[in-house]
């Protein structure tokens, strides 16, 4: 009977949806309880079987081709009017605005959005979708959710700890958002495909805008990394170096 309350939350645990604070206690119980442990195993087996059996239907080659052919022209037609209007605007405004200013504006917008994403996530009641301190759990979680792969650094012998991760979007571009802890400060690491970002960015370390955050960004292997948080610039740089070494 003691295990009834645990069993009621077993599926939530296996779905990776237990609150962070309960996870460790639950994990420890399930691993050692002779009643819950085989039950959890059975449920995992069923989950795996459904996962495989559920990938049942594939589109025919003909349908795929038809969709690919029809989608791109439609998309472009829909925006044709917008293009014409925009071209006129660009002709007028272009004489007044230098390319430099335009680039800087785009860049500043990206940095501003990164800061917003960091703040909004930390303010959320569930800041991470995959809760784990284990990089071998967090990295595979992103598989199939974002269109690229990346490496997470080994954190042994340093003060950083991984709290988890979530999917994020920047200018409608999917990416990975990882959250680390260092001496009670939370640091966000964002990873996006460089080619998908709207503005050309240069590698740099700075304080974005008037916010009291430190940020570092760089490009490596076709991916654009952002490390941001209210930790010291030295901590931001240390975490950035760990990622650079791991990539």
């Amino acid at each position, binding site marked *: 009977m003691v295990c009834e309350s645990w069993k*009621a939350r077993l599926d939530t645990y296996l779905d990776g949806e237990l609150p962070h604070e309960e996870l460790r206690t639950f994990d420890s119980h399930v691993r050692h309880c002779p009643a819950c442990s085989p039950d959890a195993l*059975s449920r995992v087996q069923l989950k795996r079987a*459904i996962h495989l059996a559920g990938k049942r239907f594939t589109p025919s080659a003909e349908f795929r081709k038809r969709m690919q052919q029809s989608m791109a022209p439609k998309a472009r037609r829909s925006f044709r009017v917008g293009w014409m209007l925009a071209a006129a605007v660009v002709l007028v405004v272009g004489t007044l605005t230098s390319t430099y200013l335009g680039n800087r504006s785009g860049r500043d917008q990206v940095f501003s959005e990164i800061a917003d994403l960091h703040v909004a996530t930390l303010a959320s009641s569930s800041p991470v979708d995959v809760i784990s301190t284990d990089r071998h759990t967090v990295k595979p979680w992103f598989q199939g959710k974002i269109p690229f792969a990346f490496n997470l650094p080994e954190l042994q012998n340093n003060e950083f700890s991984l709290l988890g991760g979530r999917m994020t979007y920047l200018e409608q571009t999917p990416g990975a958002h990882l959250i680390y802890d260092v001496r009670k400060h939370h640091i966000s690491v964002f990873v996006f495909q460089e080619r998908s970002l709207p503005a050309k960015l240069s590698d740099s370390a700075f304080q974005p805008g008037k916010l009291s955050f430190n940020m570092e960004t760089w490009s490596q292997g076709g991916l654009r990394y952002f490390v941001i948080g209210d930790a010291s610039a030295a901590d931001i740089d240390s975490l950035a170096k760990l990622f650079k070494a791991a990539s």
Partner: protein
Amino acid sequence: MDLSGANLQIDSFEELALPLFDQLYNFAHWLTQNRDEAEDLVQETYVKALKGFPSFQLGTNFRAWIYRIMRNTFLTSRKGLKVTMTVPLDFDEEEEGPEPAIEHATPETLLLASSSHESLQRAIDELPVQFREILLLCEVEEMSYQEISDTLAVPIGTVMSRLSRARKTLRNQLRPQLQQEAGLRIPRGTNHGL
């Protein structure tokens, strides 16, 4: 609208939507249980998504957004209306109590590893569509409860209880099917209780 913005929208839609094509088709086929209808549903979903893309909220979840479009399109189709009319009134009511533990060495545990996928696929097929869709979103698409909540437009509490009922129903449907298979495969008198 500026030039780069328009360009970005076109490219962004393709970049976000096309990688989901196979997954959306699979989900559509599970919903409609028919190849032609699945193709129509996918096509209609993409058309609606493209049309509504300018209103897509930045920073929100594109996958949940387009799945929601597909699901709503299905539910308003003739077949969708028909299947939702057969849902019992107590569909989302709380369960009577905690679900009993899965017995050790049940037909599932014995046969899941070796059984063909057909038994499981048949059982999923027979689930009410609301159970089928939530199970697929969770187990196949590996969506978080929050994403499922966004896709189905129901509270997270409903996601959890519906998912629990879906799993329970699936297990109940699997048991006789697998026992039948076990009876065919395992000779009489053999102890398969382990």
